[in-house]
């Protein structure tokens, strides 16, 4: 819990800021040790390899973190979450049964020998939510989680456990306010056998640097859908992995991003077919305009013996200006024989024949371009929950050049 007598923020990602954070939240020494260890790991590990050059201009290895102002008051960062948890409090004071449930997910999907930004979230975690849907419970309304970065650094940690046969929809929003917010987030989702989980993660428009690590595991006959929309951020590095751990599991990954002005957006998705008779479908629609830069890496991994896996990856990139650029890099590692795998990709400007067709119906060129550009995202947007689609559409439309 935040203590009012303390400063609400501290500057720089450093051991001293960690001390202030732990004191502010009221966690003990055990937590501090764990956070320090995670921070050391963050400092050791290399960032994801994104070569900078003519188009992608930001060198991830040269990012500085001494100017990041860390939000010490958790409530300010999680206005929608009634019970704000911190790692220390749930690990130390939480009820043992809850703790055991939590531990079925917490850190279970991460690879801390590689994931630099997940380590940073573990170090500075100052807000988050634990969503636990017990076996057989079917939630009719979405659970909404909102994390707000008000010109300061937030480190949200979301844990979702969908029990056997349960159903839930979780909408997670990151809101960016002020001049230089910093967000380093982790979300871990586990779908127990037969569960249906619909995850949606929306990065709202705004400035700042955003690093996200999203990981999911789908167990027997479960169905997991994870849709992400990257609307804001000057620099966005998002990594989304879903692993099908048992037979009958299905994962659907959907992504939209739109890099405008000088935004740099890197999205990486990975689906792992660790066993056979699993199905995955990935659809990513990325656009760039003005000097916006995008990068999409789509991985499909089918392990040996994961026979009768069915994987498809469809990614399309739309370039709306000469200085805009998107790299699309598919990587299919298929080690089993008896599988179905599909990959299709396109990169290009709006098709002139489509524009002419719309114009021949009286629609002015600029309006036709906007309509077609917005339509480009629809196949991925169709996967978003009903209540979020219009919102994402409107935000995408805002980024298109104005109709004169």
């Amino acid at each position, binding site marked *: 819990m935040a203590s009012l007598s303390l400063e609400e923020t501290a500057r720089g990602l450093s051991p001293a800021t960690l001390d202030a954070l732990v004191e502010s939240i009221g966690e003990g020494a055990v937590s501090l040790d764990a956070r320090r260890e995670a921070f050391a790991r963050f400092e050791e590990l290399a960032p994801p390899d994104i070569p900078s050059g003519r188009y992608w201009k930001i060198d991830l290895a040269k990012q500085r973190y001494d100017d990041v102002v860390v939000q010490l008051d958790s409530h300010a960062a999680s206005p929608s979450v009634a019970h704000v948890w911190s790692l220390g409090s749930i690990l130390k004071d939480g009820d043992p049964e809850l703790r055991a449930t939590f531990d079925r997910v917490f850190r279970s999907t991460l690879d801390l020998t590689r994931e630099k930004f997940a380590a940073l979230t573990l170090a500075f975690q100052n807000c988050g939510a634990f969503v636990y849907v017990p076996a057989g419970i079917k939630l009719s309304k979405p659970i909404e989680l909102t994390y707000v970065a008000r010109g300061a650094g937030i480190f949200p940690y979301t844990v979702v456990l969908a029990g056997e046969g349960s159903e839930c929809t979780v909408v997670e929003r990151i809101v960016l306010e002020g001049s230089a917010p910093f967000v380093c987030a982790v979300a871990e989702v586990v779908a127990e056998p037969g569960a249906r989980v619909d995850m949606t993660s929306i990065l709202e428009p705004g400035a700042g640097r955003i690093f996200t690590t999203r990981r999911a595991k789908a167990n027997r006959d479960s169905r997991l859908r994870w849709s992400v929309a990257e609307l804001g951020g000057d620099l966005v590095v998002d990594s989304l992995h879903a692993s099908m751990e048992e037979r009958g599991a299905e994962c659907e990954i959907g992504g939209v991003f739109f890099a405008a002005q000088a935004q740099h957006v890197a999205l990486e998705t990975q689906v792992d077919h660790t066993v056979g008779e699993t199905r995955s479908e990935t659809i990513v629609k990325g656009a760039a305009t003005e000097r916006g830069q995008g990068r999409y890496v789509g991985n499909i991994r089918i392990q040996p013996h994961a026979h009768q896996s069915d994987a498809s990856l469809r990614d399309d990139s739309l370039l709306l200006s000469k200085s805009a650029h998107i790299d699309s890099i598919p990587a299919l590692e298929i080690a089993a024989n008896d599988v179905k795998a599909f990959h299709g990709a396109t990169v290009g400007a709006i098709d002139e024949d489509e524009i002419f*067709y719309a114009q*021949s*119906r*009286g*629609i002015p060129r600029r309006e036709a371009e906007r*309509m077609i550009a917005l339509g480009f995202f629809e*196949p991925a947007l169709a996967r978003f929950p009903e209540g979020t689609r219009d919102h994402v559409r409107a935000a995408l439309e805002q980024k298109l050049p104005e109709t004169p």
Partner: protein
Amino acid sequence: MVSDLRVSVQENDILKGIDLRVEPGRVHALMGPNGSGKSTLAFAMAGHPNYVVNGGSVKIDGQELLELSPDKRARAGLFLSFQYPAAIPGVTVANFLRTARQAVRPDDLPPAKFRKLIFDQLELLDMDPAFLGRYVNDGFSGGEKKRLEMLQLAVLAPQYAVLDETDSGLDVDALRAVCGSVQALRAEPENKTGFLIITHYPRILQYIAPDAVHVMMDGRIVLSGGPELAHRIEREGYDAIRTEVAGGVA
């Protein structure tokens, strides 16, 4: 009205001086073998950027269309039904129809009447209303594409409509439905749409009776006449006409 229209594509002269006048409410058929330049005429009239106009004029009520962008030509009253209409993934038929109607005839129809217009047309065209939620021409069959062209024709009710090979690739039922939609439009008392029906088979003309028939060969209109000309083409083929025209010149 088209006069002395000359058009080239990639520096090849395709149209070598076309003169054609379609009066309001009348149906003209433009027939000719493949490669004679019929579709080039349609695209050039609509303003496709790949078609370079080297001379001539295309006017509606005295307004020169050739100076206008394709969308302004449509707003001036010209409609082209495409032989191969483009797909626009992600844009629903309903949204497209609404946007087009609003562009061509802003705010002239209350939403309820617009809705009725569309549903009446769907019925005429033997189309499921679910069609409205699909993406424009995306994954459509040949018949569905032509039905959508006719649906747009009805929604825009233009002054002049050029139907480019609307009959090609249609089975009898689809052809009947498509022509039924044109007949319904023509039957409306206030409608004065002039039609230019481009085809190389006389089949469509059994459903939509032309007032005049023109035969195009090698970028020129070589013969014009009444409906009987279409019957003659069916009986004798284009070669007989080609021979006759060549003989006449010689």
